[in-house]
């Protein structure tokens, strides 16, 4: 696979740290009791979403899940709007009516964030079908977890996407857990990507903690989709370093495995790659400082923002026809 150039590496690093610092900040606010909402932590999966988003063009569509913070922030949702939505404010992407599990921002290409495991996969096909119908050259990427690979939607959508050669990329973030159930306790296939063959589709499993594997794999899938060669199932092996949702017990995750996976933490690995490419410690730290400052300001903006008007419960149910 081709070497990732320096500009792209910097792009991926910036997106990755944006995801990570957002996650850290969210957990800090929850711990301090400043925010009390459902939050699905992405610690350990930052690189997968960042590299995947870096492989897309701004116009491309994304469908993600309730654990979609990575895709959302890395694709570029303006972070004031993102925080506004997570805090249920009128300034949020969805006027506070979607929330952490249902973030939508079409301008950024985040078309659906679904709270129902696996449901986004057939919807991604439809977005891709629209692109195929109207020739707009967009690719749709749908991100989901290993748990979603066992719901009917996954299988129906895989078959349909391959049948129509839709410009779609299926990105399975195999974080080893479907809610509280370990991969081996919910699936006996050696991996998820192997299932692609059952649909005549190209499937590939890569190390999602290694930028030199995850980025080229998604990029190749995106290029194939854009060239009209059909869908790809990319499975990124990663690890959910915390419980299913913030604050939930994760004693079911064996300590030894957690420690083993912490040694695979994508962040120090990415930093090492950056240093090998002659980025300096100072440069890398400065990027994080800038991101932190931006997040601080966005959080404050969201905390200060007004709540949505109560009237909003009556709006957007149907088109307002005057």
């Amino acid at each position, binding site marked *: 696979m081709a070497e990732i150039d320096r500009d792209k590496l910097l792009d991926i690093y910036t997106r990755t740290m944006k995801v990570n610092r957002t996650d850290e900040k969210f957990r800090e606010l929850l711990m301090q009791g400043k925010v009390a909402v459902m939050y699905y932590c992405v610690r350990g999966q930052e690189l997968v979403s960042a590299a995947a988003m870096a492989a897309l063009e701004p116009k491309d*569509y994304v*469908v993600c899940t309730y654990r979609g913070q990575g895709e959302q922030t890395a694709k570029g949702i303006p972070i004031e709007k993102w925080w506004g939505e997570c805090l249920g404010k009128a300034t*949020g*992407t*969805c*006027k*506070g*009516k*979607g929330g952490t599990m*249902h973030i*939508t*921002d*079409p301008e950024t290409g985040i*078309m*659906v964030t*679904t*709270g*129902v495991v696996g*449901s986004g*996969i*057939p*919807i*991604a*096909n*439809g*977005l*891709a*079908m*629209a*692109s*195929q*119908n*109207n020739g707009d050259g967009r690719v*749709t990427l749908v991100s989901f977890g290993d748990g979603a690979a066992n719901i*009917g*939607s996954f299988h*129906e*959508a895989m*078959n*349909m996407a391959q*049948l*129509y050669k839709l410009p779609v990329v299926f990105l399975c973030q195999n974080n080893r857990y479907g809610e509280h159930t370990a991969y081996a306790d919910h699936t006996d296939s050696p991996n998820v990507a192997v299932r692609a063959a059952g649909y005549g589709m190209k499937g590939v499993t890569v190390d999602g903690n290694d930028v030199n594997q995850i980025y080229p794999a998604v990029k190749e899938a995106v290029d194939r989709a854009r060239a009209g060669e059909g869908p790809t199932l990319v499975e990124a092996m990663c690890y959910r370093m915390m419980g299913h949702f913030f604050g939930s017990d994760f004693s079911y995750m064996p300590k030894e495995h957690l420690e083993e996976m912490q040694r695979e933490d994508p962040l120090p690995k990415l930093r090492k790659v950056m240093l090998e490419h002659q980025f300096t410690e100072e440069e890398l730290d400065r990027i994080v400082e800038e991101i932190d400052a931006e997040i601080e300001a966005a959080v404050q903006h969201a905390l200060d923002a007004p709540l949505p008007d109560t009237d909003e419960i009556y*709006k*957007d*149910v*149907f*088109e307002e026809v005057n």
Partner: protein
Amino acid sequence: MAEITMTEALNKAIDEAMAEDEGVFCLGEDVGAKQGGGVFKVTAGLTEKYGEHRIRATPISETAIVGAAVGAAIAGQRPIAEIMLMNFVAVCMDQIVNHAAKLRFMSGGQTPCPLVIRTTTGVGVGFGGQHSDMLEAWFAHVAGLHVVTPSNAADARGLMRASIDANDPVIFIENILCYGLTSEDPGPGYRVPLGKAAVAKEGSDISLITYGRTVLDALEVAGELGKEGVSVEVIDLRTIAPYDEETVLASVNKTGRALTLHEAVRPFGTGAEIAANIQEKCWDNLKGPVRRIGGTFSAVPFASHLEQAWIPTKEEIVGQIKASVGKD
């Protein structure tokens, strides 16, 4: 003017919309020319005109069909998805209820979902328990869905055009026994606005509120009772949800009596909602309790005489009306 069947009316409405807007396309099981143009031939001839991309014959994958329609709709297209028989919506309720119905609201208005889900059903054709249910109440209970059903061919043409135009999801229910009904063809561009009921027959003694195939029974009964001096007003809702409350309440305020009628089972049916609303809003003008007729609370049976006993009968409608007006 030429007569058309309901099947032809639906076909013409879809054809017209596809000719006018490239974003309109059909998808569903067996809808393509190779597969025969749909089980009930509603999409016959359209593949030849618009190609296999715009008349997509799909695998038997209801969730993938509706999911694809949702995705295409939020991308700005106007898909018409066919779920071959209404009972099969049970397979894809997540996409309809959690996604199609809610994406406009949950996105704060950013991703409207303009799609039509065509489906067919009906009691009286011997299809048995898993192919005959009227499930409109399921959808009427979900905020964000329009639920539409025509009782005649002209309305079918107009309601289908309006459904395709709508910027929200529409569940379009076609009754198998209505496909062969004929009307005068209202011609190209004809639209029946969503949310507007028809006063199918004016009357002064009781309002009979119904929709779909049972409108035929209602009109027949109204005709017979007219000869006996009972004047029945028949309201054809056409759009079941959100329904035309104004027309219904005006009618009941005029007649002072009301009976709701549908093929779907009686408990928790749409008739219950309409009846409750009438009791609340027309109480001062009511001369008696609002009555309800619906299908028997069991699965639709197969054997012909059981199926006929299951469905609301004309005798039952006559009996309820006579009881209501004090002529029983």
